[in-house]
């Protein structure tokens, strides 16, 4: 297949970016989208041009690095996939493909298609963990957790932190990400000790990073590669409200 690519090129976070057109030839339909970009970068290197910077790591849909906004959709037109799981057979010969980075004030562009998602790390640092201050590893099944609760917590835990929710939300809101992390730990007994402080701190950090507020339009859940549901946002809202009303934190 031969394709026209319209790729966002930006030197660094302080410069203005622009769309640059490239032609790629003889792309196999079996290639993943990232392999197609590898072909483009080899061509650019051979021509003595700067390759296009894009994030990638595991290339099997686990790491959440390959964040590309393809033809106006986070991770491209396929639902339930990351960019590395998107294959060129979903496109046709002669297609024009627009490739942009995630756009959010909280996710500044490092270079070209690579964005800085450390805002997510700082939200996790604010409370997305369970403190274990003493003792050894507890025996398996020592803490009884009903299967249904374990399954729901696991569903929330599948969030890979890719940021597609922020990228596709019209408000660049991070609520689906934060809600997945909060509800995962709120559902499990291990998370109960820090439950109230966690949600207060994580929401405060989310606001501080400059993410928008949720307006329940549902774009995030529709574009989430692992299918985190909007129910988590409702859980986050009530966890937040309950924590603010009953926690001992006077801030």
């Amino acid at each position: 297949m031969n394709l026209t690519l319209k790729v966002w090129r930006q030197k660094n976070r302080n410069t203005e970016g622009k769309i640059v057109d490239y032609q790629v030839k003889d792309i196999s339909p079996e290639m993943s989208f990232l392999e197609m970009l590898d072909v483009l970068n080899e061509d650019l290197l051979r021509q003595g041009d700067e390759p296009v910077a894009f994030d990638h790591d595991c290339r099997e849909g686990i790491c959440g690095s390959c964040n590309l906004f393809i033809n106006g959709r986070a991770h491209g037109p396929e639902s339930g996939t990351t960019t590395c799981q998107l294959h060129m057979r979903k496109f046709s010969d002669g297609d024009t493909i627009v490739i942009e980075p995630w756009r959010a004030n909280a996710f500044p562009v490092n270079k070209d298609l690579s964005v800085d998602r450390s805002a997510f790390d700082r939200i996790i640092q604010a409370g997305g963990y369970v403190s274990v201050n003493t003792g050894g590893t507890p025996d398996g099944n020592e803490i009884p957790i009903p299967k249904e609760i374990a399954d729901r917590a696991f569903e929330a835990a599948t969030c890979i932190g890719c940021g597609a929710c922020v990228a596709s939300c019209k408000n660049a809101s991070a609520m689906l990400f934060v809600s997945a992390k909060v509800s995962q730990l709120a559902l499990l007994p291990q998370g109960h000790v820090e439950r109230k402080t966690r949600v207060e701190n994580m929401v405060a950090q989310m606001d501080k990073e400059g993410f928008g507020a949720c307006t329940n339009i549902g774009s995030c859940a529709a574009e989430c590669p692992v299918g985190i549901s909007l129910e988590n946002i409702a859980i986050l809202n009530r966890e937040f409200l309950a924590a603010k009303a009953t926690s001992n934190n006077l801030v």
Partner: protein
Amino acid sequence: MSWISNTFSSSIGRKIVMAATGLFLCSFLVVHLVGNLQLFKNDGGLAFNAYSEFMSHNTIIRILEIGLVAGFGLHIFEGLLLASKNKAARGSSYVSNHIEQNSPWHSRNMAVLGSLVLFFLIVHLYNFFGTLRFGEPLKDAQGNENAYALVVDAFHNIFYVALYVLAQFALLYHLLHGFQSAFQTLGLNHRKYTPLIKLVGVVFSVVVCAGFAAMPIYFYFFK
């Protein structure tokens, strides 16, 4: 008491204010619609005028009116503030964005729809509330202020009829998203009840807006 201001200035706190005031305003719509159904009574407006007189002079209603103004004020203020903050959170816009493939139009344009409803509200207050409260309305046979005559007069103006009917479409789409969205924001999401809330939201939106839209149409064509 900084925890209270911190709660309500957080993104979720502001959304909770939007949801709570939104549902409160929904309750106002029900009262307003049910009361105004008396316009359809074939008595030359006597029942409607008596009701109107009660609503504008009863002390309890006048106190509740302050709450209503506060509800509108908060909903409008927080709505505009959130809309501008949310727009700023995006930063630079996408060259190509097909958001219409993953969310309905009306859910993304609540601020636009709300602003249209606000414009209508101002005209609506000018038409009726302004004259009744600050003007010198005529009296009917029972000595009540003749609000009915104002309605008949306004709804024989094709521009007002068109505006009032179109405004109901803006309100309809605002409610179609807003009603169920308010429950989600308040954390009331349950696999048993959420489908029911969504259904009730659609029925509520259609019935309320159709009820209001019927009034100008009825007066223009039949009175």
